[in-house]
């Protein structure tokens, strides 16, 4: 637990924690608004965006890809809304139509284009590669104050920290309007709050968080973190403030425990190789949700019989 930990595990862990929290924060509101699956849809549709960005720029640079992914997410949200309105189709089905078609388009584009020179494939998009985000220049805890070593940090870390900061800022500044419009949209509208803009803004923030997290850790974590920690937190409390707190705690717990289990678990069991950290983090968030569903103090619907 010294130099090796700092250079091999510290940065992936930090990135995992930041990504998990950045997704869980907007996830709370999406969950309460009945839009929990938006995260699922977004994480599918970023694939065509990323592939298109690659085709346009010819490199796997981060910023064009994030822009492409963000644009794809926006297109998807608009398409879902358009199909829902024009075709009078229920939102779930409209979402299903859009994200599967866009994902299929992304896979097709990927197969059609020559990506043999670069590391860009569907598997990578799904699982991410948390384990590879190591900090080679670190020699120990002292490196944290060494500007020379800090410069060699994996660029995903400052990006995800920035994104997390933005998400926290958004939530903090718009706290009251968000809370109001989430629980009572009609009342919020009579107060003159721009309800539709808030709703769209929330989706956009979710998309930004999803895209940034996706860049670092792949889409499984994104989907899991949008839903599992907020859902588990929802079973713990009736107050939104407390729910947010629980969800942040659960997200961080999943990230840390999942990473540790994936990295060291097989070694403890006598295995040789680490297993997928992204998958393990998602699994752990599910375990937490399962425990909350079994023992959470507020797991029942209010008014439902205690044993029901």
């Amino acid at each position, binding site marked *: 637990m010294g130099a090796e930990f700092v250079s091999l595990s510290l940065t992936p862990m930090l990135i995992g924690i930041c990504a998990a929290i950045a997704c869980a924060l907007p996830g709370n509101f999406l*969950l309460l608004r*009945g*839009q*929990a*699956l938006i*995260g*699922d849809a977004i994480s599918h549709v970023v694939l065509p965006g990323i592939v298109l960005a690659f085709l346009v720029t010819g490199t796997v640079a981060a910023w064009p890809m994030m822009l492409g992914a963000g644009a794809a997410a926006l297109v998807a949200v608009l398409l879902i809304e358009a199909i829902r309105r*024009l*075709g009078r*189709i*229920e939102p*779930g*089905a*409209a*979402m*299903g*139509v859009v994200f*599967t*078609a866009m*994902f*299929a*388009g992304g*896979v*097709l584009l990927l*197969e*059609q284009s020559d990506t043999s020179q670069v590391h860009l494939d*569907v*598997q990578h998009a*799904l*699982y991410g590669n948390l384990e590879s985000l190591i900090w080679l220049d670190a020699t120990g805890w002292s490196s944290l104050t060494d500007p020379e070593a800090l410069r060699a940090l994996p660029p995903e870390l400052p990006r995800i920290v920035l994104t997390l900061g933005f998400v926290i800022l958004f939530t903090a500044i718009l706290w009251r309007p968000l809370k109001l419009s989430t629980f009572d949209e009609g009342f919020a509208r009579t107060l003159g709050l721009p309800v539709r803009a808030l709703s769209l803004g929330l989706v956009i923030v979710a998309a930004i968080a999803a895209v940034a997290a996706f860049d670092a850790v792949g889409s*499984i974590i994104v*989907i*899991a973190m949008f*839903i*599992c920690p907020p*859902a588990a937190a*929802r*079973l713990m409390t009736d107050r939104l403030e407390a729910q947010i707190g629980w969800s942040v705690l659960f997200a961080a717990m999943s990230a840390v425990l999942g990473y540790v289990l*994936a990295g060291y678990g*097989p070694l403890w069991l006598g*295995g040789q*190789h680490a*297993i*997928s950290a*992204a*998958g*393990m*983090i*998602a*699994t752990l*968030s*599910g375990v937490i*949700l399962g425990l909350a*569903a079994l023992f959470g103090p*507020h*797991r*029942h*619907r209010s008014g*439902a019989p205690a044993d*029901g």
Partner: protein
Amino acid sequence: MLIDALTLQLGYNASLVAIGAGLLGIAAGATGTFLFLGKRALVSDAVSHATLPGVGLAFILMVALGGDGRNLPGLLAGSALSAGLGLLCVSWLTRRTRLSADAAIGAVLSVFFGAGVVLLTVIQTMSGGRQAGLDSFLLGSTAGMLRSDALIIALGGALVLAAVLVLRRPMALVAFDAEFAAAQGMNVKRIDLAMMGLAMAITVVGLKMVGLILIVALLIIPPVAARFWSERVDHVVLLAGAFGGLSGYVGAAISATAPALPTGPIIVIVAFGLFALSLLAAPGRGVLAALLRHRRFQTRVHLRQGLLALAQGQPIYEPLTLRLMRRAGYVRADGVATEAGRAKATRAALDERRWQMLRGDPRHEAAAARYDGLTPLERVLTADQITELDRGLGPEAAR
């Protein structure tokens, strides 16, 4: 090349895949209709993602028992078990906790998929067993598909289709109104289970060809597209089956023409094309039909207002009204009313006066509710009633 593929001239394997995909598509479209009508389309997304850990566990188990890890029936049995478990988790979370259905779906989807990915990486590190090949369950793969694999897909599709035919009445009833179905003495829970079981069967059968991420598209897109063309369940089921079958068959044929055209995504894109066509061109619910309807309504309103203006001798300034009046031959190019226009205008004015009379008369309350400023009174009242009404208008009405 595409013609060859569509007429099954591209060799034994490609033909097998195309026919299998067609059957799978028909079964998926028909099954998906009931999920869609019951507003539960996305449950299939959770089910399909939940197959992954089962595939991984089945592989590990088969290798541990000394067999071939890639035995397709074994893998499919494993995927069915874990998909069933996922389904149970969704329904347990929705019924026993305060979480809504979409949260339960998302949670099951991501957690099962994550667990599956963990198992896949475990398999990668296992020394025994021929690895690889399991990744193909993510996006499907028809390359090197065996005759037995195709037979399993075709047979599975046919079985599901038969079950849909037998169960279509109760499933439609439950999808539309579960409480009514329960009052009719139906076992809603069991029918629900059958519906989900069929969706699960489609997912498992289609896993090898379309892959678990995209199989849900075959369950969702064809029914949504079919819904545009009909208001009757039977027709929607048939159409969805046809759309699904067409997507499967054409998609597989297109993908057989070139190496870089993966079957699953192409099938989904073809299905989406059919959906886009339906959204635009379907009569009744389609966008073009709605535009036409709007346009016709607009024309009627403008003509009516123009005629009333003529009758009162007022000038018309509104450009669209003027254009429509001119095209109908009611006014000349300089805006002066023609003979036909004056006659029409008189009739419109009379109609309007009769309506006013009618709306002031409590005896005609029901008829008055139909006033929209457009409907001619002749469509609402009989000739006798109108004569009766005209008496109140005095000598003016005889004009």
